[in-house]
């Protein structure tokens, strides 16, 4: 009984620790490892990420690209294209809470990719995108 309780406590502690340890960098690495399985030698590219972020997908009329909600400058607030609600900046430099939970990141990729691109995004696209969000487009 006691052993079981300790065990549960330990697991709880570990997962809390893991959750806290997530950073934008560690989330990029996770996706990069996944991408390298199909593309050996894959390395995340902010430049490709910028291209992905600004690409006109032509799938959804209301949401043709990512910038309609997140804006072009990731360090300032975005605005939801349908409801008008303010969206906190995506750049971790402006909003330290960004990209600190892989569950949250996955949830939004799932929704937004389906919506804008009409399909799920690949691990490579996700790694590139977050790399770009961390670095900026340097232009």
């Amino acid at each position, binding site marked *: 009984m006691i052993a079981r309780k300790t065990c549960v406590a330990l697991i709880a502690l570990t997962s809390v620790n893991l959750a806290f340890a997530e950073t934008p960098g560690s989330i990029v690495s996770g996706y990069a490892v996944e991408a390298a399985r199909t593309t050996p030698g894959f390395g995340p590219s902010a430049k490709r990420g910028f291209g992905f972020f600004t690409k006109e997908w032509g799938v959804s009329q209301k949401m043709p690209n990512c910038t309609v909600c997140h804006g072009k400058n990731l360090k300032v607030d975005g605005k939801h294209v*349908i*409801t*008008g*609600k303010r969206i906190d900046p995506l750049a971790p430099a402006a909003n330290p809470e960004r990209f600190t939970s892989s569950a949250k990141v996955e949830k939004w990729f799932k*929704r*937004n990719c389906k*919506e804008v691109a009409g399909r799920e995004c690949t691990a490579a696209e996700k790694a590139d995108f977050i790399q770009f969000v961390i670095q900026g487009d340097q232009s």
Partner: protein
Amino acid sequence: MKKWLMAFTLVLGSTMAHADGEKLSVPANQKWKTECGSCHIAYPPQLLTAGNWQNLMAELDKHFDANAILDANDNKEILDFLQRYAGHGARYSASSLRITDTPWFTREHRKVPFDTWSDPAVKSRSNCTACHINAERGDWSESGIKMPGGKRAEESEGRPGSGSNRRSEEYDRD
């Protein structure tokens, strides 16, 4: 004893809510607040019926014009919360599942001029905070209303305490 205390708290709670014009307040539920509050503010559960909430939460992949899909556990937790505090009766029901199509909403907003709805600062009827500036903190009181262009609620809703206003408060209550 515990039951009495609860009943007492409930009565006290509802009286307070009423006095403050905060009948839309609910106990904080973090999941509801974050999940429902990312694309629009987390709308008060009281504004749709339990049946409406059930239908709405069953089609989150086609949530009006957006994909708002949740994992099954979160979906259930939030639906339970919404249904627990849901509104009752036809006034809080809309076949479109839009709060803005319920008889309650339509009536409460009947004096809002057409050009206010189409003001770029409002953009959509789902944008409550365009006028209810403290709604995100649960404050829906009339004194917390500021319409775009600086109009006050009283100017379009009638003076507080005037006949029309009292009627709408009564309407509020039942």
